[in-house]
């Protein structure tokens, strides 16, 4: 399914992605029909509560979660360096291995557990570069030290031989970023990159990611449950709930007029966004078990505006405010 593409083609184009796990409790539908596009240079935020399928979708297309008992279908067309779009889901282990770490970099949630505790950080960064031919044995140290310096690690020569436990949480995440960017990827997938960090460090890390994006011309998919973070740093936002997309649009449109009651509920449940004097409203109820999903609209059991239609019919994509790139999957968009 290779096709030549022009420069404006999306870096990643996911269509109809379904991910399900076969378990003892039955079929667990983690992702149910996800469509998304990431344009060159775009920062796309995927926002949702835990269990909404945001991480699973990205880890499934790159084959970084268990294959056993996992069914993945759909297409995930990735535009490689050769500007040929290929479907990640049709790739074999080796082909995907040539893309992971080289064309797609990853930053994970907890930098302490995501770094190998018994390997020096220099070696951990160098490993990918050597494998993908971005460096040779002779110049790898020099390149890694330069990279550490670039991501804002002081005394990079000294840190090169440090172990992860000798660094602070923020420094470790900088190391993760250096590792993810070591082969000049086209796409960075950041899975809750600041969730495990102090709030004071959070901003530094996000700023660093944005700086690197501008320098390297990357696209970023930022998976987060933190709505303010997504609104501040992302161009486009995709709100997910229980494996389905609820709403998608630009960050600006979503703030100014959220179309989905769930998006609105996310806004009003957020302390940081709530202004002084306004009530912080938690969303009542819990996210449904993925083995027993509600009929119709997935959000209807928790939606204050739900009708019989919501209970019975899956809502189609509705344009909000006449914008073709602002879609709300709701029978009664706000």
């Amino acid at each position, binding site marked *: 399914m290779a096709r030549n593409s022009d420069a404006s083609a999306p870096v990643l184009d996911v269509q109809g992605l379904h991910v399900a796990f076969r378990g003892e409790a039955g079929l667990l539908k983690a992702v149910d029909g996800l469509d998304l596009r990431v344009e060159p240079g775009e920062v796309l935020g995927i926002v949702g509560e835990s269990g909404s399928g945001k991480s699973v979708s990205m880890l499934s297309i790159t084959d970084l979660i268990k294959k056993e008992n996992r069914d993945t279908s759909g297409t995930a067309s990735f535009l490689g360096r050769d500007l040929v779009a290929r479907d990640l889901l049709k790739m074999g282990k080796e082909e995907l*291995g040539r893309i992971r*770490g080289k064309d797609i970099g990853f930053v*994970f949630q907890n930098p302490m*557990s995501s770094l*190998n505790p018994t*390997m020096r950080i220099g070696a951990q960064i160098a490993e990918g570069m050597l494998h*993908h031919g971005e460096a040779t044995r002779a110049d790898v140290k020099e390149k890694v030290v330069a990279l550490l310096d670039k991501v804002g690690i002081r005394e990079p020569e000294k840190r090169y031989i440090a172990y992860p436990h000798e660094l602070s949480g923020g420094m470790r995440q900088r190391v993760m970023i250096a590792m993810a960017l070591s082969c000049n990827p086209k796409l960075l997938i950041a899975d809750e990159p600041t969730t495990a960090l102090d709030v004071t460090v959070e901003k530094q890390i996000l700023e660093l990611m944005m700086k690197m994006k501008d320098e390297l011309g990357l696209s970023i998919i930022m998976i987060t449950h933190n709505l303010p973070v997504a609104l501040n740093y992302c161009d486009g936002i995709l709100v997910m709930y229980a494996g389905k997309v609820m709403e998608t649009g630009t960050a600006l449109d979503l703030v100014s007029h959220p179309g989905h009651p769930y998006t609105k509920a996310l806004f009003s449940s957020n302390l940081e966004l709530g202004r002084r004097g306004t009530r912080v409203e938690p969303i009542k109820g819990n996210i449904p078990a993925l083995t027993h999903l509600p009929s119709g609209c997935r959000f209807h059991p928790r939606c204050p505006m739900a009708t019989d239609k919501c209970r019975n019919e899956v809502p189609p994509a509705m344009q909000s405010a006449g914008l073709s790139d602002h879609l709300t999957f709701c029978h009664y968009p706000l």
Partner: protein
Amino acid sequence: MHALVFFSKRLSAIVVSLAAVVTITFYLMHSAPGNFLEMQQVREAMASLDSKGREAQKQYEIEFQKRYALDKPIYVQIGIYLKNAATFKFGPSFTNPNVPIEALVREKFGTTLQIVLIGLILAIVAGVPLGVIAALRKNTVWDYGLMGFSMIGQVIPSFVIAVGLIVIFSVMLGWLPTSGWGQCRHYILPALAIGAAPIATVARYIRSSILETMEQDYIRTAFSKGIPEARVILAHALRNSLIPLITVMGPQFSFMLLGSVLVEQVFRIPGMGSMFVSAAQQRDYPMLVTSTLIFAAAIMLVNLVVDVLYAFLDPRIKLE
């Protein structure tokens, strides 16, 4: 500096423990029925003697007791023994009065150590790859076969395996000698007999350790770099899986050292084990205490080495 404090602490603890081992062994030995002079051969010889001969025998016994300080109270005997042991002098044994025990120990302990070390190397060299294979082929015929086999290896005592090996390789196939010592071919069966259970233990341990490690976040990170699975396993999973293995190697070593006592008997190897058994049979007190002391010291030192290795493999651990 930390390491220096660590070693001095640990070494003094070892000295105190060894003194306790000696004390306990002395009391146990003396409370066991019979002593060297009462052993059967001596009694029979005495019965055939006339009165003059009996007199001479009595004189000999008194001299014997004096020579080995057996006429003194036990705690004095212990004190004398410990004082000499501090300079690695154990005096002559009852059965071999012309040779100091330390000379015998030097010779025999080397033999035992050779078998045990070969067994240990075998346990790691064979056990680790078997465990890795079982982990990578989890829930397949390979896994079940290897784990079933290792279960058998773990439950059969080493001396039974020793006899089994002799039956197969010496009696039926005639490839290897049933007993003896000195040549390469003499090492094979004893090392296998001693190593069988540790191979099985190591394989099982590595299997579960690898499976646990493969679930860790940093393994996903390694895969996210695009490096091949083989490298992920060897460079990332294996080293982290070896750390818990180190902790079982200490007890495994002790286990093999004690197993050598029986295996040496089966193969008639002139090592510490055989020496220990004959010392116990003949109530040769100095030899018995010294053998016990040497075994205990070896086990304690190996545990110290294990702790040092642990710190070496896991940079998060500091010697304290």
